[in-house]
């Protein structure tokens, strides 16, 4: 097969055509687009497609190889599940934003050069922000603007790096960079990518914005932005030591916040930082096994994190709150939602038979193989925090625990949401039981068997004894009606401080200046005007009038000469002619 239709095209066209459909046809169309894109990915053959020449730059829309394909696969599967989950939404705009977002993420994954990547990178930021705004609350609007500003900043870092890279190498080709060759341009690009991957300290946009997104939008958001960033890091920057260290730091940082947060979606958002940390660490370690692990974990993570966001979203959708402090005893009203959430929770915690077990452990084992024992310990510590926060804390306080103070009139969510959760849960289970289905997609050949005795023993000890500590300290963990500061403090409070500075210093100065101008400047201006007026009247007008009078005088002389008789004119002409002749000669 020589030609191939880029799956992003279906999403972009689908988004534009969507408003033309109505009723059931629209629902069908919303599911058809991701289904067709799955087909397009299934039919793709490795190779380079869609090379173009623009302003002297060689661009490439479709680099189809193993690394891009593993991400493309999970993106289109997730697009289908996300569309199914969001099927009940009436607004076209929400679905269109979702389609543009998925399409641009696919465009970024297949881009072969920085310029193409940059274009899709920016579409991604600008389409995803609508998924936050569609929650239509004041907080979401504000969080959306912060999200957008932060991503524009990231885009600028990337753009500056890209341009400097072009000056350095004369090319926009996006390929693996050796750590030894990296200097300013590469590190600027790396910073732009790292911002989207929520690498510390450029992470605060994520837990700020995702919990404020619409119920359905959050399911999309948690899948694409950070994982596209993991892809570009794996493509360009594998083996960068700083990523191994920062990734590991992210894993622990994320779970620490997940332990103390109250809002379920905020717990999950912090937990994305932790999980993406595993992938970033895998990319940083850079061996075949570690990069495989990063790709496998991205695949597994997209599914179970989406499942968790679907579960939390269902709770929010049905009860009107996602705050643990106001929830409790939900198992009675939403047992299916609870089961699906728990499947997501055991998957993310890496229980045997579920997807996290076969993906996360690849990265941990890669650290182990490389003798990076401290990294391995910290990654396992984050594993403890994962099960503690997402697995035990949320499940216990939302679905069990004390009954909520205000009785919750909750029911199971609509059928399409249940189906989406059920299918996603099934995929998590299939990957866990048949890891080969995932491993054949990975960029490097896999010689890893997760189901061995040592690994099982290690995992079961970590999970079970975490359970024991939770059982003993459950009171310590009861949710508190608080929010926790993060580095967004600096720009949120910084902006408020600036507004105060504006109000207290700049605005009064401006008023003072205005006053000064009014009293001194304006009166001077008036005096000046009066002077000019007098000058105009006395001098200019005098001169002009004088000229006018002399013109009038000469006019009256001429008038006398103009008698209207032709013989006088001829006589006068002859007289003038001879006078001139006499003067010249």
């Amino acid at each position, binding site marked *: 097969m020589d030609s191939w239709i880029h799956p992003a095209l279906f999403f972009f066209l689908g988004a534009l055509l969507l408003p033309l459909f109505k009723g059931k046809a629209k629902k069908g169309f919303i599911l058809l687009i991701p289904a067709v894109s799955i087909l397009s990915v299934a039919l793709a053959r490795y190779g380079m497609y869609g090379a173009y020449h623009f302003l002297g730059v060689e661009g490439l829309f479709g680099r189809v190889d193993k690394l891009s394909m593993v991400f493309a696969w999970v993106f289109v599967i997730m697009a289908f599940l996300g569309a199914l989950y969001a099927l009940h939404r009436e607004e076209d705009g929400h679905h269109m934003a979702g389609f543009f977002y998925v399409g641009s993420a696919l465009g970024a994954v297949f881009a072969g050069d920085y310029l193409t990547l940059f274009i899709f990178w920016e579409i991604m930021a600008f389409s995803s922000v609508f998924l936050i705004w569609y929650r239509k609350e004041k907080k979401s609007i504000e969080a959306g603007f912060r999200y957008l500003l932060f991503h524009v900043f990231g885009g600028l870092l990337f753009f500056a790096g890209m341009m400097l890279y072009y000056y350095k190498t004369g090319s926009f080709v996006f390929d693996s960079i050796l750590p030894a060759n990296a200097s300013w341009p590469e590190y600027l690009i790396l910073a732009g990518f790292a911002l989207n991957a929520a690498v510390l300290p450029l992470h605060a946009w994520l837990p700020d914005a995702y919990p404020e997104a619409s119920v359905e939008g959050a399911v999309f958001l948690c899948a694409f932005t950070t994982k596209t960033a993991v892809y570009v890091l794996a493509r360009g920057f594998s083996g960068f030591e700083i990523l191994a260290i920062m990734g590991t730091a992210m894993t622990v940082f994320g779970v620490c916040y997940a332990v*103390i947060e109250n809002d379920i979606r905020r717990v999950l958002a912090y937990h994305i930082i932790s999980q993406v940390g595993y992938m970033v660490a895998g990319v940083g370690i850079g061996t075949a096994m570690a990069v495989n692990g990063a790709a496998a974990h991205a695949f597994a993570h997209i599914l179970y994190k989406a499942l968790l966001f679907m579960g939390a979203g269902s709770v929010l959708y049905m009860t009107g709150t996602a705050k643990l402090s106001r929830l409790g005893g939900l198992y009675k009203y939403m047992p299916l939602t609870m089961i699906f959430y728990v499947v997501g929770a055991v998957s993310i915690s890496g229980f045997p038979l579920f997807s996290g077990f076969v993906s996360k452990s690849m990265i941990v084992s890669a650290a182990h193989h490389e003798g990076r024992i401290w990294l391995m310990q910290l990654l*396992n510590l984050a594993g403890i925090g994962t099960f503690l926060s997402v697995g035990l804390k949320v499940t216990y306080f939302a679905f069990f625990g004390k009954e909520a103070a205000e009785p919750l009139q909750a029911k199971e969510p609509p059928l399409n949401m249940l189906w989406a959760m059920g299918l996603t849960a099934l995929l998590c289970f299939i990957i866990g039981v048949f890891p080969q289905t995932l491993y054949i997609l990975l960029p490097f050949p896999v010689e890893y068997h997760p189901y061995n005795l040592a690994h099982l023993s290690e995992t079961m000890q970590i999970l*079970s004894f975490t359970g024991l500590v939770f059982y003993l300290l459950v009171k310590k963990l009861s949710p508190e009606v608080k929010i926790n500061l993060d580095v967004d403090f600096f720009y949120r409070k910084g902006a408020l401080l600036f507004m105060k500075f504006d109000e207290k210093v700049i605005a009064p100065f401006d008023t003072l200046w205005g006053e000064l101008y009014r009293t001194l400047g304006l009166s001077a201006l008036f005096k000046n005007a009066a002077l000019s007026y007098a000058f105009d009247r006395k001098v200019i007008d005098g001169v002009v009038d004088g000229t006018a009078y002399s013109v009038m005088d000469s006019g009256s002389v001429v008038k006398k000469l103009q008698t209207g008789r032709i013989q006088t004119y001829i006589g006068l002409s002859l007289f003038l002619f001879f006078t001139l002749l006499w003067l010249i000669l």
Partner: protein
Amino acid sequence: MNVLKIIEYLRGKAALLKMAFFLFLGALVLLDILLPREDAHYFVDKIYAFWTFFALAGCFLLIKISKGIAHFFLSKDEDYYG
């Protein structure tokens, strides 16, 4: 609903489940001690039931430190940013 009945039934047997859980924990430690260790390279592979101690200490510290820092200065009222 069937699922609900199963959960209610299990909640009724909490004491029994607790017993089973503790027995399971004991079995895990025992299993790890019996595990063959010929290809152990690092201390984490050599120490018996290393991950049990790791999980106990790690989980305890994680809760204490996170909650401690939160109470020390991170925690703010929900309308902190207005």
